[in-house]
């Protein structure tokens, strides 16, 4: 046999028609084996029937309970004449959003930003008068909302600028904007137009977002410190962290909210200047931080031991090993769990209804229960609230997936 026998490679043939196109797809996904075929045949008519009922209901649904008082879903019982204050807060968000898109340029950042801009445009131009001649959106409110678009563009410009477009400025600006927003909402005694508004009147989606942002921004660093404390060699720090984590994870959030409103004041002086919203925000933050700590600890645990050893062998100090080598890898590995925690935190902000706050869900419920004409419109309300929550959580989830694939560079 000659060693140098030349073999001609077989030319590639197109796959059989049953493996590609919609036939191939259906075969692989719907009629894979007899069980899946059976399921497909049984479930398909049920889905069609369900969709039919849903669509028929959508045409008869009465959305008046939402369209007649949009303001209450957005800012709760916040006084109308002071609505410019939360609206200014929205402008701050737009500025930062645009800046973020300018700093982290790329297809997904643009897509999310365009969706955000379109959303502002639609809300600003919505012809409310067509449905409810009695509900007028004041011209200055429309103006405020539409101004979001140029502000978004200005933020983008800042983000693209070489000097201002830095992540550090973005974080600093975010913190400053948040504090400014809280100041705007609560007011400054003695300043005309900035009369104090009791946190009891904050409500609607604004309350959900305020609580969620506070929780997200603070629970992450607190959770990180707790995770590091739990792994540290200092027995006292470790004990404190383990105790904190286990207590806050082991008690339902509702119970913690009650404790913070009912029991904690007993332990404080009567005029202690912490209002119920702040107390709820702190409770939610600490609760979330306990979970965050365990997520991050999981990420640290999953790193190969050699990573820390290699960093030590190079002479890096302990805190450098942690901050430059271990944490960045650990956090990247648990982004899905961290964002999951953020999403669940955002949804949990609804629970503040049990301490008498009117978040978007409770605001709606009180509208349904307080007006005889809406008594049958519960379905519309819950569907509306569900869609609003979903819009926000899906955006978070989308951004996290993009960050994951972006950071996945070079990972085997």
């Amino acid at each position: 046999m000659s060693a140098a026998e030349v073999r001609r490679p077989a030319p590639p043939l197109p796959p059989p028609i049953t493996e590609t196109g919609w036939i191939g797809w259906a075969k692989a996904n719907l009629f894979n084996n007899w069980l899946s075929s059976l399921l497909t045949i049984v479930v398909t008519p049920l889905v069609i029937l369900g969709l039919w009922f849903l669509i028929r209901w959508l045409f008869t649904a009465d959305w008046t309970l939402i369209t007649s008082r949009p303001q209450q879903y957005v800012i709760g019982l916040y006084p109308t004449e002071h609505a410019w204050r939360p609206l200014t807060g929205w402008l701050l968000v737009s500025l930062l959003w645009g800046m973020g898109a300018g700093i982290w340029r790329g297809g997904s950042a643009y897509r999310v930003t365009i969706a955000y801009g379109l959303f502002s445009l639609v809300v600003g131009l919505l012809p409310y008068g067509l449905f409810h001649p009695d509900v007028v959106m004041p011209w200055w409110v429309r103006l405020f909302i539409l101004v979001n678009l140029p502000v978004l563009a200005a933020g983008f410009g800042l983000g693209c600028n070489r000097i201002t477009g830095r992540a550090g400025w973005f974080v600093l600006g975010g913190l400053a904007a948040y504090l400014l927003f809280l100041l705007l909402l609560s007011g400054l005694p003695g300043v005309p137009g900035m009369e104090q508004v009791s946190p009891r009147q904050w409500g609607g989606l604004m309350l959900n977002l305020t609580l969620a942002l506070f929780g997200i921004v603070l629970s992450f660093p607190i959770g990180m410190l707790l995770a590091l404390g739990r792994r540290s060699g200092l027995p006292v720090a470790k004990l404190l962290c383990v105790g904190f984590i286990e207590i806050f994870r082991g008690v339902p959030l509702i119970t913690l909210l009650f404790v913070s409103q009912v029991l904690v004041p007993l332990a404080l002086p009567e005029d202690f200047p912490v209002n119920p919203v702040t107390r709820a925000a702190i409770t939610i933050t600490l609760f979330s931080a306990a979970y965050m700590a365990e997520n991050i600890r999981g990420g640290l645990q999953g790193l190969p031991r050699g990573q820390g050893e290699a960093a030590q062998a190079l002479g890096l100090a302990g805190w450098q090993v942690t901050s430059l080598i271990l944490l960045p890898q650990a956090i990247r590995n648990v982004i899905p769990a961290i964002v999951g925690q953020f999403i669940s935190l955002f949804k949990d902000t609804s629970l503040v209804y049990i301490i008498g706050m009117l978040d978007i869900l409770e605001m709606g419920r009180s509208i349904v229960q307080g007006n005889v004409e809406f008594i049958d419109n519960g379905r519309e309300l819950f569907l509306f609230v569900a869609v609003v929550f979903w819009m926000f959580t899906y955006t978070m989830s989308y951004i996290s997936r993009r960050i994951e694939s972006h950071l996945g560079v070079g990972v085997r």
Partner: protein
Amino acid sequence: MTTQDETHSPTADDIIVCNDVHKWYGSFHALRGVSTSVRRGEVVVIIGPSGSGKSTFIRTINRLEQHQRGQIVVDGLELSNDVRNIDAVRREVGMVFQSFNLFPHLTVMRNITLAPNKVRRTPLAEAEAAAMELLERVGIPEQADKYPGELSGGQQQRVAIARALAMQPKIMLFDEPTSALDPEMIKEVLEVMRELAASNMTILAVTHELGFAREAADRIVMFDEGQIVEDQPPDDFFNNPRHERVVRFLSQIL
């Protein structure tokens, strides 16, 4: 054994001096009285069966493992619980691991410049120029901007060597640097190590590459059950081993 005693008596030229070093993992006695010293510029290859304590031993030299009895002095600094000494020793001792342990979230360039920049406070531009030179030296300057996950095993190990060299160490420790590599990649790593050995670097290498040991080593030290059983120049080590255990070990792996 007069020759062994000569090797162990510390002189001014000794950069590493170990005296009766003991190490326990729980109740397991991993190092049982190791005494040896290494001169400046000497290349010492450490061999021995697995579990004999050879890796543990070189890991005590930069204190990745703590010894519990005895004395280790590296370049005049004794390793104890004194953190300042540990940091100072780690700055002078580079280490290369079996599993590379490159930082996967940083580029090759950043892997190399990180420690000089953060520990030695070398300005970044200067550190990058030095890193580029090192990458030339290990033969992969074109990989500077890639991430470790995009390189082959042999390339990763060469980056790991460059990373350790970037701190301009006086001593290099190699802990089975080729054991995780495919045969064709072992050669490229050994070449870099040979070049390093010829450049007057003090090297302690745990390896099963007897070819490298024969060519590049000044001494071959064999560990068994936590003790040094043989310590000779390569020629004597292979041709007149003093210890029966060496003969058995060589017959097992050759």
